[in-house]
């Protein structure tokens, strides 16, 4: 009933181009933002922050990053875990080398470093496509993890070979280390997520996004209308890696606190983020959020149902989770290749006409 374009006239291209063209959507978006910033921090506790909210926010950034590369530019990447590790280690090196700088700057710089590394590993994409590129990025994944394991400089020659985040504060409030309050960690991540979402949306709706999508849909035609495939692909790698790097930096510094690279940023992580993007919806920023939420909430929900309600053993539930995720991937690839975002779009389309569908 409220979900209508009717009466909401657009009188300029600017209005026609906005992210949420329907008034109801616009208000919904502001409400979500207001609740996330103004209400949740007061209600949050350690369990909610650590089990659901913070990982959701961090994975959402990673999924946005991968979605730019795979969903918008059509370059399949299995190196997300490796790039997250780059972000984490860059953040660690920066935190220990320049302790006086703000955490915000560390995380953003870590994203920048990852963007450079991403461009480097994106170079093969100029020659190879599809599966072969996926294998090339897989090489990046293994190489980067190996590098961070083998070169002691990256972990400051610590005896354990791990990196652990020193305590850092933002405006006097701790955001890293075990003593950081969960609401501060949550807000810190939320700020990055909000900016990542807005930036990614801006990048994908304008010229850059069209270049990427042109390359994705038909690279020959893209070249004939004046897209330089070199800059288009590498800029996608750079933008994507920037977000993935930020997510890796946050994952290490504020979420885990201490990281062993093979465990935290292994190939598993690459696949997890890829699954988020596939289930959420390729080529959609909303899809990145939906996919991240889904795959973060799923294990928690399963544990709640399986272990707490039905009394099954923990390992059975853990295996169930793998089965369910695997089945879902297959189902989504066959039935709805555009993922949850497409379901959402269809629902909105229906809602626009409801209750008079004819």
């Amino acid at each position, binding site marked *: 009933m409220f979900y209508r374009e009717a009466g909401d006239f657009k009188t*300029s*291209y*600017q209005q026609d*181009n906005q992210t949420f063209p329907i008034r109801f959507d616009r208000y919904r978006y502001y409400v979500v933002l207001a609740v996330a910033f103004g209400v949740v921090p007061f209600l949050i506790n350690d369990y909610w922050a650590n089990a659901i909210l913070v990982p959701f926010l961090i994975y959402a950034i990673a999924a946005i990053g991968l979605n730019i590369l795979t969903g918008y530019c059509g370059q399949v990447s299995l190196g997300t875990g490796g790039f997250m590790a780059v972000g984490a280690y860059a953040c660690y090196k920066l935190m220990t080398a320049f302790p006086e700088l703000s955490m915000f700057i560390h995380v953003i710089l870590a994203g920048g470093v990852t963007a450079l590394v991403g461009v480097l590993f994106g170079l093969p994409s100029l020659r190879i496509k599809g599966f072969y590129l996926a294998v090339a990025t897989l090489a990046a994944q293994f190489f980067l993890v190996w590098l961070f394991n083998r070169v002691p400089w990256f972990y400051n020659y610590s005896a354990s070979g791990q990196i652990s985040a020193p305590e850092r504060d933002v405006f006097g409030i701790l955001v890293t280390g075990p003593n950081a309050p969960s609401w501060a960690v949550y807000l810190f991540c939320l700020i990055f997520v909000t900016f990542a979402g807005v*930036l990614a949306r*801006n*990048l994908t*709706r*304008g*010229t*850059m996004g*069209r*270049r990427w*999508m*042109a390359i*994705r*849909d*038909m690279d*020959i*035609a*893209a*070249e*004939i*209308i*004046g*897209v*330089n*495939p070199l800059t288009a692909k590498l*800029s996608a790698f*750079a*933008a994507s890696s920037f977000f993935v790097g930020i997510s890796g930096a946050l994952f290490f510094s504020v979420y885990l606190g201490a990281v062993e690279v093979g465990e935290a940023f292994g190939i598993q992580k690459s696949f997890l983020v890829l699954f988020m993007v596939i289930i959420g919806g390729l*080529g959609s920023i909303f899809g990145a959020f939906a996919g991240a939420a889904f795959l973060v909430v799923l294990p928690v929900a399963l544990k709640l149902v399986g272990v707490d309600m039905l009394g099954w053993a923990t390992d059975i539930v853990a295996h169930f989770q793998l089965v369910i995720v695997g089945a879902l991937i297959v189902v989504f690839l066959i039935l709805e290749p555009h993922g949850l975002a497409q379901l959402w779009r269809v629902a909105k389309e229906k809602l626009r006409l409801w209750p008079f569908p004819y």
Partner: protein
Amino acid sequence: MLDQAEGYTTADGRKIGGVVMEMKNITLRFGGVVAIKDISFDIREGEIRAIIGPNGAGKSSMLNVISGFYVPQEGEVWFHGSRRPPMRPYEVARQGIARTFQNIALFEGMSVLDNVMTGRLTHMKTGVFSQALWKGPAEKEENENREVAEKIIDFLEIQHIRKTPVSRLPYGLKKRVELARALAAQPKLLLLDEPMAGMNVEEKEDMSRFILDVNDEFGTTIALIEHDMGVVMDLSDRVVVMDYGKKIGDGSPDEVRNNQDVIDAYLGVAHD
């Protein structure tokens, strides 16, 4: 009738200007196959130039040479009075040459509007950072170019489908969207590779009208490949005829029609 420097006046009174593009002794080989053999012709400002010939004559290869996909082994391409070095297709596009494809090459995952807007890419200069910020230069540029794109959309009468994903459109409309995308670049030279392939009579009439209108309204120079002889003879000012990679005729539709070599190529003669 044809004055090298001055151009000429067409039968319907349009003034045709100087040479825009000149192909000089182009030879293109694929291994042992000679696709184009020592062909020279020119395209003049404001004219509709057709390239015709039987299947496998090398017409599409010729278009691909012009648009930079193929680099000829011999010969020179002159554009606006200077020799063009071998360049990549996107550099050719930036020089102001746009084209459509024989089999539609639209971006299926994008809306019609986005497809047309991709045609404006060569005119859009803002970098990654202003794009990411959006407010300011990026948005201004977007709106300015949107205005141009909307004019083209208006011109080709596809307003009603502007937000429709291209993958949902029927064939005839896709062809029109592809023309819109090429036109959005405001090209100096527009190449059309079989713009009427696979269309019914009405769609062909529509498309012919659009081609004439484009030429008339924007003064765009057009080079096209087409198999429908009726269309070619009606539309074009001058025609190049190719057969087996060689040029066998060049001139006004009437001259070409009465050229014995052309008649032979189309009707077939005993090769001895």
